[in-house]
């Protein structure tokens, strides 16, 4: 089932400057694998050493944050749109 992936500008160097890509996959993990097969190195940018999605990265499925769904195991269906969005936060304060 093809799923549309929206790639943020900062990651488009990895996807040959493509901002939207269609990939087959039944859940978020599978489509990231699919992206990595097509664009080697993509997966490494998405997961940390423990195999979790990096905390700087938000993934939305049809405008819903996967953290409130089933995480990287969130099931996908034909026509779903997956958006990879950078976490944008900071500030001069210390912890």
């Amino acid at each position: 089932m093809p799923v549309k992936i929206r790639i943020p500008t900062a990651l488009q160097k990895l996807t040959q400057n493509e901002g939207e890509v269609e990939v087959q996959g039944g859940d978020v993990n599978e489509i990231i694998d699919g992206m990595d097969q097509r664009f080697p190195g993509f997966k490494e940018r998405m997961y940390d050493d423990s195999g979790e999605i990096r905390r700087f990265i938000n993934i939305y499925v049809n405008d819903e944050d996967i953290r409130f769904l089933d995480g990287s195991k969130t099931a996908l269906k034909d026509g779903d749109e997956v958006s990879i969005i950078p976490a944008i936060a900071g500030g001069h304060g210390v912890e």
Partner: protein
Amino acid sequence: MKIDISPRALRAMKRHAGRDYPHECCGFLVGRAGRGGRRIAIEEALPAENLNRERAHDRYEISPLAYLGLEESLKGTGRGILGYYHSHPDHPSRPSETDLTMFGGWPGYIYVIVGVDGKTAKAKRYTVTAWSLEEHELVSV
């Protein structure tokens, strides 16, 4: 890397920083990148809501959905989101440890910091620096 910030964008960032003082403000940098990303033209600075209301005095956070909405609106215009700006009230316009951690996660973006000195003189003073992650180091551009 060569970065140009339009006078309009600069004015908008300073205005936003001054208006939100003593809290941190934040927003998007919109424009065009050329020459393989070596030449950046920031045309507009668009304000975003700071979601971190509890620590707005020293932290900012921009909604991912705001990013998505803006990116959608820029489709087909030839312009994109080149990075983000935020302010440091009464603090230098240099990335903090927190900023460095966040910037490090997203090389390829430009980060502009507006330092606002609201205590030294009657009128607020502004310093603006732009940063980019190059070769694993943040550099002033």
